[in-house]
């Protein structure tokens, strides 16, 4: 645990973010994804649960709101399985152990993953009132989150669980200073230890997620679920031009381990998800789950606003005269 806190400390100091849409613009991910707990895992969700953490700088004193876009399971965005019969529960947690509890940082909803103080909760079924609309939790006093020195911030946790049915709920978050519109908070960020999301149907789109590589990371184990072999997953960093990792297929996990280059430490990786080009029958509504662990099997955070910015490979060009 101590090691983990040290890891987080190093990134909290370095990072200044401004936007808290989840997914973020740089990620180019349409929506987060959670299926009802009666769905087949082959449809893309391995555990019907997703936890996201919101980080608010301790000096920020205004009230905050956590907003959910299209929280219901029905309508155009969500994925129907037969008929709409699913419910999703959104819960907001703050207070002690909200993040510091080990189970809260795990990838599966087991143990005390709902640690902390439940501050708000709402269950959504099929409801046109919330279709393509924002639902707002809050206001919350930032101090109601779990304060952690290592972040120098307050942390809130939002868990979305599919509690019934087999439909897929596609949604987005935004942490705002307003309950009626999305206004970003300077210095805030959002992160998750497992990312469950919906891919674009347009195969020209490339989605990104950005795990942070702290200074103690030696190897990174990348796990992806149900990618359906629909293209490539490429790891890019300042020192890595583009490395393909094995991709999962229908209803399975695929794992790969890559060795961290010294210069990659304290920077972010860019996991690029490129759908297969030229496919006459492109896969639609492809959902994927991704997590990464270090050499200690500890989960590593994906930040929606990448620490250190979006990593770009550092090319070096020269022009040398020849005879």
């Amino acid at each position, binding site marked *: 645990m101590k090691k983990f806190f040290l890891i987080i400390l190093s990134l909290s100091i370095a990072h200044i973010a401004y936007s808290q849409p989840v997914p973020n613009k740089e990620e180019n991910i349409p929506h987060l994804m959670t299926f009802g707990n009666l769905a087949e895992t082959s449809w893309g969700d391995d555990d019907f649960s997703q936890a996201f953490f919101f980080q608010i700088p301790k000096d920020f004193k205004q009230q905050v709101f956590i907003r959910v876009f299209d929280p219901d399971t029905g309508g155009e965005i969500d994925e129907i399985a037969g008929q709409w019969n699913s419910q999703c529960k959104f819960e907001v947690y703050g207070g002690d152990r909200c993040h510091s509890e080990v189970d809260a940082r795990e990838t599966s909803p087991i143990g005390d993953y709902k640690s902390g103080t439940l501050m708000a909760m709402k269950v959504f079924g099929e409801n046109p009132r919330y279709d393509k609309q924002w639902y707002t939790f809050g206001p919350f006093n930032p101090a109601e989150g779990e304060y952690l020195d290592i972040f120098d911030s307050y942390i809130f946790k939002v868990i979305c669980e599919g509690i019934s049915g087999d439909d897929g709920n596609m949604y987005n978050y935004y942490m705002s200073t307003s309950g009626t519109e999305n206004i970003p908070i300077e210095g805030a960020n959002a992160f998750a230890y497992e990312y469950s999301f919906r891919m674009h149907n347009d195969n*020209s789109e490339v989605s990104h997620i950005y795990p942070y590589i702290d200074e103690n990371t030696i190897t990174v184990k990348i796990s992806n679920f149900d990618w359906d072999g629909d293209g490539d997953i*490429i790891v890019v960093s300042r020192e890595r031009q583009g490395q393909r990792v094995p991709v999962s297929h229908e209803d399975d996990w695929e794992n790969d381990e890559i060795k961290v280059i010294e210069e990659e430490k304290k920077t972010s990786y860019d996991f690029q998800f490129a759908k297969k080009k030229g496919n006459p029958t492109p896969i639609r509504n492809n959902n994927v789950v991704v997590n990464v662990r270090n050499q200690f099997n500890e989960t590593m955070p994906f930040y929606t606003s990448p620490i250190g910015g979006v990593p*770009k490979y550092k090319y070096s*060009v*020269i*022009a040398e*005269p*020849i005879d």
Partner: protein
Amino acid sequence: MIFLLLTLNLGAQDFYRYETLRLPTKGFDELAPIPYKDGIIFVLGRPASASRKLTTESGKPMTDIYYAEKKGERSWGTPELLSNSLKTPFMDGPLTITADESLICFSRMYRAESRDKNNTNLKLLFADFENDEWVNIREFEHNDPEYTITTPFLSPDGKTLYFAADFESSLGGFDIYVSRFKNNSWSTPVNMGDKINSSSNDLFPFLHVSGKLYFSSQGHGSRGDYDIFYCDNFMGDWLDARPLERFNSRADDYSLVMSEDYTEGYFTRRGGSWDIYRFFTDYPKIENPRPIQRNRWKYRLKENSLDTIDYSMFEYEWVINDTLHIPGHEVIFQFPKQGDYYLSFNVHNKVTDTTEYDVGNLFLPIRRIEQPVFVCQDTVKVNEVMNFNARDTYLPNFPIEGYYWDFGDGMKDKGKTASHQYTSPGIKEVVLIIKEDVRKEPDNKAVFKEITVLPAD
């Protein structure tokens, strides 16, 4: 005062001017000068009228060693006896001195010693300069009263002695010999061979730093009684003696000494009397010549960070001045002309079908180098004509007064083109100097190139 400008074959010129030294010694004989301090040491012959009883066998007066200080460009102070300790009533000199001016070698008549009062032969002696005086006068260990040894020349370090002697081993009259100082003694003199020594008298050796041996000879087809000749040395062997045309006259010409850079020196001419001549050159001074730099128009444009180039996932492209697109991770490009070029490097990811533009960029000012430039063969044989051409010189905003050539063998020429024949093999440094056409403190640009001169077939 005499000014002469002589030319050699093929238009190559020496650019030397020479003039008699204006020493206040009218009526005296002056000969065998060597540079010393701020002037020269030379041999001064007293007028016959001053010492009628003491003359050489040929009736010439006896001599002493004098020093004259140079006072101005063409004026000289009154000569003074170099040292009383070196003076005798008979013939003293010629002489030679080491580079550090601590050791002198000079010739003297045997008859200066009472035991040899009837011997008019010359011998060599050494003296050391200590406490402002020439002391420790001692004889050259190979002196022989039966023979004359004279006109010495010491190498700058004082370890090698060249001289003329009429030994039995001579090829005729006086020959030039060499002796080396080893283990605290001088080696047995060695005749320098028939490339240097003729069947007549050969005197006044002077070994230039270039390796050329200059000397005076009645042989080798001299047109006067004595002419000045030189021999090149190639890999230890002396080559045929060649006359130093520009200094030879119908009179006798002797005792040439020359600065390391060939720009000035002295010699002696005997017309009615013996006179010292100073020669110099108005050739532009060569300062810091540089090798000719190659204009670089062709470049390798290269991305340098990748150990492995992945063409399966990526395509690469160079863009020059935002107009010319050249595919490739590493490309060769020849820039058409001088100018400022902006290079950018784009990478296309075939998997994501995305292109990162300008991931690397360079500003490359391509300039033609401002410098004198000449072309010539790299290698030539002795006596072959070598042509030089400075047409590729690029010196904008530099008004050119003239093109001057130094062929590295003491010969020079002027003109945008030049030709030259080398008379000896070896590595020669050819220098092209371009003189600026302005009145005050003109600037000179100089470049050099080494060429190889091979022996003739």
